[in-house]
């Protein structure tokens, strides 16, 4: 640990972020558990940004290969996570069809 002055601000930010994550979903109804899990699954797709930087700064072929894998996996996390969440939530948006004879 060489430079602690850069680590501490990040730790404080992480603590606040943990609190935010906890509070934001603390009163969620059971009905929304699945979409919320899927939605948070999408949000950690931000890993794609890190993967892009890792591949972008990679120099050796091995680093490039693993970096490429990271980008592929991260991109799948992003689009797949988005589409799954969107499709689940679409169900909540559907206009109610009046049943026959009602």
């Amino acid at each position, binding site marked *: 640990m060489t430079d602690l002055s850069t680590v501490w601000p990040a730790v404080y930010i992480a603590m606040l972020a943990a609190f935010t*994550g906890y509070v934001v979903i603390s009163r969620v109804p059971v009905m929304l558990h699945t979409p919320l899990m899927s*939605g948070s699954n999408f949000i950690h797709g931000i890993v794609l*940004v890190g993967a892009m930087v890792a591949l972008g700064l990679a120099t050796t072929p091995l680093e490039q290969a693993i970096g490429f894998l990271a980008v592929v996996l991260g*991109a799948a996390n992003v689009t797949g996570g988005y589409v799954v*969440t969107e499709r689940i939530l679409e169900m909540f948006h559907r206009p*109610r069809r009046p049943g026959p004879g009602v």
Partner: protein
Amino acid sequence: MVDPQLVIEPVYLATVFFFIIGLYRMSNPLTARSGIVWAGAAMLLATVVTFLTPGLGNIGLIGIGIAVGGGLGYLAAKRVAMTDMPQMVAIYNGMGGGAAASISAVELLAGTAANTAVLAVAGGLIGSISFSGSLIAFLKLQGWMRQKPITYSAQQVVNIVVLLLAGFFGALVLTNSGVVPLPVRLFLPLFFLLALLFGLLMTLPIGGADMPVVISLFNALTGLAVAFDGFAIGNYAMIVAGVIVGAAGSLLTLVMARAMNRSIPSVLFGAFGATDEVGGAVTGSLKSIEADDVAVMLAYASKVIIAPGYGMAVAQAQQKVKELSDLLESRGTPVKFAIHPVAGRMPGHMNVLLAEAGVGYEHLFDRDEINPEFTGTDVVLVIGANDVVNPAAHRQGSPLFGMPILDVELAKNVIVLKRGQGRGFAGIENDLFYRDNTRLLYGDAQESVGKIVQALKKL
């Protein structure tokens, strides 16, 4: 020229802000749909500005990677049936974990500074576990692998040894010391292999019924891995988004486990359903019934409750069930749907499946609302549900003891639509089926409900 960082950092900041807004909106049914759109737009923006990163090479490779991964992820997610959503969440979560582990690998290969290498090792360890664990969860839910817990003797000892070895090689990667007679360049691959192996081993003994909890746990772990990588490469957007998912995912895991009356340690180490139930032998006999008789029963009922389970969704019977409920309503018989919190594969999954078939929310009632109503109900149709209606949950000593269930056995008549004489997801005998007021209608749920509808129309 403007310093690219003056563009990138504010955009990352806005991205994180809209992630939080998006999650917040997703926690309310009325705004949920817009929540994912906000988060999606923010993600798109963050991806675009990342191309401006100073010194970024391999732009072509990055573009191809995004096109390939994004395209496959998009197509698979578009095509999959709503019933299969839980395993899709698992697989995409695993990919996020794999991406985090790969970033760590690149950072460690490139030989970053010592103080960030620790964080990269942590991210690599957690990301790898989440990756291989999620793959097993996917295979089990998809039915490409035995859903029953896979156990062997001294399993937990083996798991702990593998985890400790992974940690040991992680430490060797950091110190590059020659404590073991192996070339230094083998440390890194061994570290990742052991971490991947641990994720695989820890998921094998977990049965299908507990998978939602485990997927949620891996989701939280991936968030944590992303946060560690964010620390390692100095990306605040990754730190904040990762930690938020880690915290929200942990809370969600606890809430889900509570809804299923399971504790996290018993999920992870319990091998639920692996052992035979002790005590509580079933009495009585199985009594079957034909669709025509069910139709007659329904025709003269003054109140009907439908308790759907995952079996209904597997048989794609939602549309037929909706038709049946409409038919009964048009004859003046009120129909209510009793939704157990974990009916389907995940909390809320059944609501989604019924909504897809067009059953309005005003017909859906959760367990606490509907349980007092069973006593005065003439007919309860249990369609493809088993564990969530198993009265064994009220009996001490049963593995299900204490799990909140739908008290369907209190109704005057219980009709259970079943494919065969198999047990539920938890692998436990259900004495509801042997009760005097229970009749079993065997066959494919879609076909059976169709027959009931036809017979009812003739009456």
